[in-house]
């Protein structure tokens, strides 16, 4: 595997927001999870960026993270959670949550 071209930017517990843009090529950033805030659960190592290998390019190798979202954030209803495995370039840091509790989300352990 080629060497990793990006350093690891996030740790478990970090809040991240996914990109909201719709790229003109294959991506693994699922449409229903774009522009959403989630919590990094786990760093999964570094993997070739599928967006670039699908275009026949030599892919960048980036950290991949499991990121957990609440159903309430994704769908506006539901009490479950959805995790996705996302490449680092899909993500940006998200601000800390507002003070009011997010209804419908499961209780999280204290940081």
């Amino acid at each position, binding site marked *: *595997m080629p060497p990793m071209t990006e350093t690891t930017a996030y740790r478990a517990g970090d809040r991240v927001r996914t990109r909201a843009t719709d790229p003109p090529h294959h991506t*693994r*950033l*699922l449409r*229903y999870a774009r522009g959403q805030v989630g919590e990094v659960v*786990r760093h*999964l*190592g570094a*993997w070739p960026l*599928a967006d670039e290998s699908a275009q026949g390019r030599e892919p960048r190798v980036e950290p*991949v993270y*499991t990121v*957990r979202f609440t*159903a309430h954030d*994704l*769908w506006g209803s*539901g*009490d*479950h*959670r*959805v*995790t*996705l*495995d*996302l*490449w680092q370039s899909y993500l940006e840091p998200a601000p800390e949550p507002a003070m009011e509790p997010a209804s419908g989300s*499961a209780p999280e352990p204290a940081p």
Partner: protein
Amino acid sequence: MSGHHPDAEIAVRVRRLEARVVAAGLTDDAELDDILARLLAGASPLNGARIVARAWVDDDFRRRLLADASAAIADVGLSTRGGLKVQNLGVVENTATEHHVLVCTLCSCYPIGLLGPSPSWYKSEAYRARVVREPRAVLAEFGLVLPDEVTVTVHDTSAENRYLVMPRRPAGTAGLAEAELAALVTRDGLIGTAAV
């Protein structure tokens, strides 16, 4: 599911492609059959069941499995390297308060080497679209009704990791040997659409 066969079109494409590569002298039917046979030899839910049964009886293995499943499954003679691509394995553990279920909403990613070929419903648009949105309703249709206090987590397999659910060990199984425990674990339990 309905009697509709969504894979008919792709099956035609695959047969045409196979005819072209064989006609071009790039391979032959025997080689293709051999590749498929090697891929599927031993690819069965029994592998996943053996992993789970070991974790039920060996707490040290269970901890290592949850921390680094790809490495831990060597203990039971298994590997994630049997497929066409390198993949990592992640195991998620059901508890009294948390239930996990797997899906690939983009296509049909699935740990074939450890579970065998995926069931047709796993690849259906209905399952893929609905389980991320209303998992409790979908699981109830599978006959699995979860109490409200159980948190449901849906794992959408969107990168190179593949997942396996570790079901809860059923009550009343304290006297069973590891092989007997493995016989209790079903394919759907390993996907998370059944309790065990």
